[in-house]
């Protein structure tokens, strides 16, 4: 990837809070036009990364670049090229939707009221309604419409689907696909709903305890990681200390090993240790997320 292809670039970004590193040497490129999902458990460092990216927080070390500029010193004109919807973003409850647009338009360079109202029409939201009378899903959609009104090149969504019921979440996803991606924008978002991620994202990165564990195109990440189930005649031997072994669990005669970058070495090990049957299973995004985020960071499977 050349420099110009990355809309967002994290370069050894590190942020400490007191004695705790919220983010350690986080390095990641977000290619232009991609829909990039940043995954991790609560406290994994996702929001810290996004805050540094928006210039809302200073990194302890390293840097975040956005649209080719240092995020820490982003001029307002550049900021207007980025749409952001914060986690659980609150909208002023007594305002009418139209007023929200006017309010935002007065303070944000590049805000296009016509674009805002076109998005509202498309979403079927009546601009004369007060925020407090909107459903939770509609409020999320209004927040997205506000973020999209300046036609930003980059849209950052921090857990946009949080707290939405399945029907509203689906509507929100449709909007994401329709409004956000179809116009060739870059989207960086966090989520805990992995089935949604699978649908809309083309790239994924998994953070665990502030450390990037894996990143890349969704299909590549999924194809790199498999689970090998080895069955033995007697009790299964202890799991091997092989590079690439992410996680292991033994149950009686069976030993299951989650491995990245090919099952060959592990399969060979199992055969020489008397495995009578080997099954190689592909993992769902959810399975591999769980294996990455419940295994020790010092183990195999360094971030790609």
């Amino acid at each position: 990837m050349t420099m110009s292809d990355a809309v967002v670039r994290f370069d050894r970004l590190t942020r400490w809070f007191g004695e705790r590193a919220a983010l350690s040497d986080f390095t990641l490129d977000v290619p232009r036009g991609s829909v990039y999902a940043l995954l991790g458990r609560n406290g994994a460092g996702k929001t810290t990364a996004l805050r540094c990216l928006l210039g809302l927080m200073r990194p302890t070390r390293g840097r975040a670049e956005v649209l080719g500029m240092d995020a820490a010193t982003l001029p307002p004109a550049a900021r207007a090229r980025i749409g952001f919807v914060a986690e659980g973003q609150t909208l002023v409850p007594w305002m009418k939707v139209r007023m929200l647009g006017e309010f935002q338009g007065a303070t944000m360079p590049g805000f296009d009221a016509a674009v805002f109202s076109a998005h509202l029409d498309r979403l079927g939201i009546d601009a004369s309604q007060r925020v407090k009378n909107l459903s939770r899903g509609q409020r999320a959609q209004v927040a997205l419409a506000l973020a999209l009104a300046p036609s930003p090149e980059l849209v950052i969504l921090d857990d946009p689907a949080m707290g939405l019921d399945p029907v509203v979440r689906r509507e929100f996803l449709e909007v994401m696909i329709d409004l956000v991606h179809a116009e060739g924008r870059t989207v960086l978002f966090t989520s805990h709903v992995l089935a949604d991620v699978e649908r809309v994202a083309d790239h994924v990165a998994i953070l665990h305890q502030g450390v990037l564990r894996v990143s890349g195109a969704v299909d590549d990440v999924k194809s790199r990681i498999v689970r090998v189930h080895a069955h033995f005649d007697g009790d299964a031997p202890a799991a091997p200390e092989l590079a690439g072994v992410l996680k292991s669990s033994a149950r009686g005669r069976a030993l299951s090993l989650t491995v990245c970058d090919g099952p060959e070495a592990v399969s060979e090990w199992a055969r020489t240790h008397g495995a009578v049957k080997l099954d190689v299973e592909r993992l769902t995004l959810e399975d591999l997320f769980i294996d990455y985020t419940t295994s020790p960071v010092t183990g195999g499977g360094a971030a790609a």
Partner: protein
Amino acid sequence: MILRIDPSSPEPLFQQLVNCVKSAVATGRMRPGDKLPSVRELARELVVNPNTVARAFQVLDAEGVTYSRRGSGTFVAEPRPTLRKDEGLRRYRAALDALLADALHMGLDAHDMWGGFEESLAELHFPPRGEEEREDDDE
């Protein structure tokens, strides 16, 4: 046309879509000349990233299941078995080699393997193919 995907399956979504279309064509639910929905329509209908749909269409085009015409869309192609026989045979052999190697590691002998192969083969349903012996490739 019924195309379904399962986002909680380990199989990549684009591959699920490819398999869906192949199976729809193989069972006659989609016929040569039928038009597929556009990338955008299908992305919206299935609620998936349009790149995923576009990738599935590329694979289907590359495998000769469909063809795309710029500006008019993607259509189910006429079956062209002779065009793809070499490549099909190559992939079949590669998959077979891996399977047999695995069977060997599991301790099966040639007799076990052959017996299993015959049983599985007998369960397959082969559609009648009048043009199967055609040798002339017009492309």
